């Protein structure tokens, strides 16, 4: 399974709906400081169910809703479309689209292929494919030396948890 595209609207600096198609291999994202690159990272975590505002670099989840001098977006929306031909996500469709829409209060609405779904059920489906908002495959800015700086006991926990 791999990500085919990410759609972001009303999320942080993505005031206008933006769709990014990803390569099966290596996709590079670059640009000036403060342009919104790490915000794309936050969008991925958000769509995968991140609940901690700190992990989204804010004080509250509501901080992800786009605010500008002109207006505040009504809601933050992120969807991730997966190529699921290998059926690693236990859903019977070649294309699996998950989305999350947050407009304040609660956690927001999760959808699977357009239909509302409980967060719990969605997280279970995704974790069968080893897809999680927080994992070693997702390395935020400034975190790359973290694993090297863990205590041996913490590193043992990481490996023991995988096994």
């Amino acid at each position, binding site marked *: *399974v*791999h*990500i085919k595209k990410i759609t972001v609207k009303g999320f*942080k*600096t*993505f*005031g206008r709906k*933006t769709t*990014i*198609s*990803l*390569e*099966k*291999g*290596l*996709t*590079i*994202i*670059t*640009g*000036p400081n*403060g*342009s*919104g*690159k*790490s*915000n*794309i*990272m936050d969008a*991925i975590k958000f769509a995968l169910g991140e609940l901690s505002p700190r992990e989204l670099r804010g004080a509250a989840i509501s901080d992800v809703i786009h605010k*500008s*001098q*002109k207006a505040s977006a009504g809601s933050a929306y992120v969807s991730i479309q*997966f190529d699921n031909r290998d059926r*690693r996500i236990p859903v019977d469709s070649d294309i699996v689209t998950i989305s999350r829409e947050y407009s304040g209060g609660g956690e927001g609405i999760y959808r699977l292929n357009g239909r509302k779904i409980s967060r719990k059920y969605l997280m279970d489906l995704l974790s069968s494919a*080893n*897809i999680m908002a927080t*994992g*070693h*495959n*997702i*390395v935020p*800015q*400034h*975190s*790359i*030396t973290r*694993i*090297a700086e863990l*205590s*041996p*006991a*913490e*590193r*043992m926990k*990481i*490996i*023991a948890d*995988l*096994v």
Partner: protein
Amino acid sequence: KLKTFLSAFEGISQNFQEIFRRMTGGDGRLVLENPENPFEGGVDISARFPGKAELSIGSASGGEKSVATVCFILALQAFRPVPFYAFDEIDAHLDPLNTQKLAEILKERSKDSQFIVITLRDSTISAGDKVYGVYLKDGVSNVVCLPRIEGLGDGGPSERLK
């Protein structure tokens, strides 16, 4: 349980060794603090960078820690395959040579797994199958597809995005 763990541990350590050698030319391995009773000790990452003595990665330099961490993350792949990796500026503290090596490793491993890599460095940018440039206009982010160009010495795509 112990048997499963030890076999997994051996495998991950082996992978780590291969990827570390591929990346640095040196030797790296995972070490059990308490080999008799693994769970009563932790896991150490031992690395011998070329031309240097072996050291525990906790006492390595900033760039060395980044290199070892990337190798460790990729070493887990055989045991807990993840469908994609999302890395945000993991090359920030790498010298030009290590940045180049990292780009090669990512290019190679991207044949088997998907990588989404945020970077400001030209060598990493040139490894991509696709390059997106993000820029801000009136407080709103815009994303454009950038053409692949070798040998950027002009500050690269970041310059053109201003």
